[in-house]
């Protein structure tokens, strides 16, 4: 029992030991966590109130200055003495003419062999109208009437040309009952068109004698027909016999009769015998082998004499031939088939003339004409000597279909592209007119007016504006322009003008204006403007115009060697009142200036920026292009007082614009609290 107790005590001791260790671990962890997150916070409350500035910046009386909103920011611009700058144009404008070579300012800075070259343009013209002095008949075109003098004006007095057969085809000639008279003898007509009347019936006796009975003589005038090619003619007869016992057939005589009635040529006699004529109307035919015939005179007539030859008679009866009956089909009508006659006519004539040999800038050609038939396909062409041919489209080409017969139509064309291509070196020119129509009827071309009117320049001008930019904006006291220029021809009327920004015009007299006649190379013109020179530059810009004018028919060149502007202006070395600093809160302050940035100050040999109010406090000092004092000493600005910012000892080594960016530091006396106002000092 005692052993048990002892044993239990040992176990309890071990448990207690573990329990104590566990409590230590938990307690230690707990303490550590509490220590890591303990903090406290103190509050700072700040009220920021927008307040009116206690001190303001104001414009001074020297230079120019800008005060921005709230008068806490200012920009002051003043000019520093510097060597007189010389400028060259850095742009140009071709008012008249075209730039050929050279550049600005590169070519116009020094007098050398590098020129700024501009080619002149035509500015005045002369126009001369020419009419044909000759003509050429093309193809088999014939001159009907008139001369080229009739072509000089649009007066309905014509030069007339006859067309020729340009195509032929097989055609029938129908017997018509219309007639014509040849040398007092009447003849019926052969026409290309079919019957156009109720018909006419011819008859001959078949009751007493046999033999060829003349029925009718028909003619077709050979106007426009130069030949009739060989073919097999078929002669159709619309005929019948009065009694069945009669035996008869048709045949013809073929001849060419002159317009005076005499026979020029007997082609054939008693040919184209038909089959037997029946005792009721029918169309019978016979053929004849036509040999080629050359027309001797187109006033001649082709004559077909119709016969019915009776070989068996019947007393009291006749034989008949019917013509021009529109009630019949054309295949049944009396006619001569397969005769080769013209189916298309053409008229083609070339008009020639002469002109001047100037450098044309425009050509206007005109053809006023008519045709004796309508709907002729007309082509008008002006010969292109460069092309070596009549053009088939574009300049020098026109095509149209004529309107009504004998109605004049004026056709013209304005050529501005290379018009000199339409004449040779001697000034010769030619215009061709051609009319074609598919027709069996010959027609005429009636030319009323043909004109060839070139225009050429009689005056050439070259005008160039040279533009200066980015110059000093200081008010000039004198502007001296130098222009060195020449022309590749002599006696050019040269005008040099400076732009007046006040009147917005180039000056036409007095200073800034020069006029002379060119006579040599590199002629120098100096224009010195002393009166109101500020009118001749604006915002750093200026411009001068050089104009050459010459009465000539060919172009020339303006060659400019130098354009220079010497820009003089006054610049003081001291500006006492550039800006004002005014206290308006009724407190005393300590102020000073300090630089926080700058640009292009290397050109400033000297500059001092100071406060002045009876006494002077130098704040910023520049010497030799370097800021040697960037922050000034404290200066007392007393209650309700005004002091000034002064710029003095100004001097620059070259023209340009320098900037000093500074703060006006306003310190509340007795504290380190301060205000910063921005001030830009621009020194041109």
């Amino acid at each position, binding site marked *: 029992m005692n052993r048990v107790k002892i044993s239990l005590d040992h176990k309890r001791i071990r448990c207690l030991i573990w329990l104590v260790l566990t409590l230590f671990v938990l307690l230690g962890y707990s303490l550590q966590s509490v220590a890591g997150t303990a903090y406290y916070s103190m*509050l700072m409350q700040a009220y920021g109130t927008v307040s009116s500035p206690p001190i303001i910046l104001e414009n001074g009386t020297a230079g120019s200055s800008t005060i921005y909103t709230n008068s806490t920011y200012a920009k002051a611009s003043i000019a520093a003495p510097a060597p007189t700058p010389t400028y060259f144009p850095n742009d140009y404008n071709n008012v008249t003419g075209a730039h050929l070579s050279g550049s600005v300012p590169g070519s116009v800075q020094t007098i050398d062999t590098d020129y700024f070259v501009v080619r002149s343009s035509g500015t005045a013209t002369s126009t001369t109208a020419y009419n044909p002095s000759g003509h050429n008949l093309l193809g088999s075109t014939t001159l009907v009437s008139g001369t080229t003098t009739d072509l000089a004006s649009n007066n309905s007095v014509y030069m007339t040309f006859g067309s020729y057969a340009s195509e032929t085809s097989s055609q029938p000639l129908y017997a018509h009952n219309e007639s014509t008279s040849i040398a007092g003898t009447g003849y019926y007509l052969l026409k290309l068109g079919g019957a156009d009347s109720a018909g006419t019936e011819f008859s001959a006796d078949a009751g007493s004698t046999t033999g060829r009975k003349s029925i009718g003589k028909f003619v077709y005038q050979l106007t426009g027909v130069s030949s009739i090619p060989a073919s097999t003619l078929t002669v159709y007869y619309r005929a019948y016999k009065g009694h069945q016992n009669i035996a008869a057939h048709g045949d013809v005589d073929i001849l060419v009769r002159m317009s005076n009635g005499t026979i020029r040529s007997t082609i054939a006699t008693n040919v184209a015998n038909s089959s037997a004529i029946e005792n009721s109307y029918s169309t019978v035919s016979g053929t004849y082998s036509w040999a080629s015939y050359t027309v001797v005179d187109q006033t001649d007539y082709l004559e077909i004499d119709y016969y019915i030859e009776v070989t068996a008679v019947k007393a009291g009866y006749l034989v008949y031939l019917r013509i021009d009956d529109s009630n019949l089909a054309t295949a049944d009508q009396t006619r001569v088939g397969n005769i080769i006659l013209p189916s298309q006519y053409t008229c083609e004539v070339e008009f020639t003339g002469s002109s001047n040999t100037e450098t044309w800038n425009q050509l206007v050609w005109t053809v006023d004409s008519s045709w004796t038939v309508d709907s002729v396909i007309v082509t008008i062409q002006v010969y292109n000597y460069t092309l070596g041919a009549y053009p088939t489209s574009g300049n020098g080409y026109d095509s149209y279909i004529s309107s009504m017969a004998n109605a004049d139509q004026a056709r013209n064309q304005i050529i501005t592209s290379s018009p000199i291509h339409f004449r040779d070196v001697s000034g010769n020119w030619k215009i061709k007119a051609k009319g074609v129509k598919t027709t069996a009827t010959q027609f005429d071309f009636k030319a009323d007016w043909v004109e060839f009117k070139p225009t050429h320049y009689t005056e050439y001008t070259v005008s160039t504006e040279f533009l200066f930019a980015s110059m000093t904006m200081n008010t000039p006291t004198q502007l001296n322009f130098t222009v060195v220029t020449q022309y590749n021809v002599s006696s050019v009327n040269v005008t040099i003008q400076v732009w007046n920004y006040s009147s917005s015009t180039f000056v036409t007299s007095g200073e800034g204006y020069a006029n002379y006649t060119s006579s040599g190379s590199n002629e120098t013109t100096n224009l010195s403007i002393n009166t109101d020179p500020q009118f001749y530059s604006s915002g750093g810009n200026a411009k001068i115009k050089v104009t050459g004018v010459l009465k000539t028919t060919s172009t020339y060149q303006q060659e400019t060697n130098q354009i220079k502007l010497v820009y003089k202006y006054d610049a003081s070395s001291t500006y006492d009142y550039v800006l004002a600093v005014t206290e308006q809160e009724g407190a005393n302050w300590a102020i000073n200036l300090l630089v926080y940035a700058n640009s292009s100050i290397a050109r400033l040999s000297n500059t001092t920026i100071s406060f002045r109010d009876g006494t002077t406090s130098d704040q910023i000092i520049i010497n030799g292009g370097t800021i040697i004092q960037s922050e000034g000493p404290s200066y007392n600005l007393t209650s309700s007082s005004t002091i000034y910012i002064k710029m003095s000892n100004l001097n620059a080594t070259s023209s340009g614009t320098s900037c000093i960016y500074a703060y006006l530091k306003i310190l509340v006396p007795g504290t380190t609290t*301060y205000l910063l106002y921005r001030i830009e000092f621009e020194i041109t």
Partner: protein
Amino acid sequence: MAKRKSLDLIVLLMISVFVITASALVYYSLPMVSSTTITATVVAFKQGADWDDSWTMGTNNTYCSLALKAYPNATLTYEEPLNLTNTGTGVDIRLRTVSISPASGNEQVSNFTFINFTLYDETGIFKGSLNYTTTGNTWSTPAMSPTLMDANDEWYIVIQTKAEAGAKAGIVANIVIGVDVQE
């Protein structure tokens, strides 16, 4: 009989174990003795060289109220308006935005360009900042990471203000900043 006793003993033992176990799971109690003593904070505000007499420093220097100005288109710098001192051991401190009014979205916000609070140690080394800048009617939301302030250090806060050109005079921005001190 002997079996019966044995069973009774086992049951009694199991009940005893159950009672003991159940009691232990419900709770146990650890004794902890705490005592709370009112002591001064080791970090506190201190009036700077540029402290304005119109400003308020709270009791024990754990609260202050500063009335600042902001001039249009000009930067106003309070070089040493307020200091922080640490009279204890080294602690981490940070500046933290508590509140700002007018809040973003209010058109009055656009009258301000910035209100910056910058913390420097006594040697002039930058330690952190809260810069409140505006974009239109919206304030930025600055934050600062904790930084160690050694024992016996005295840091200073620089405040810069600027109002927009043309800002309306009298517009007020109220910024409450907490200076968190972690011991």
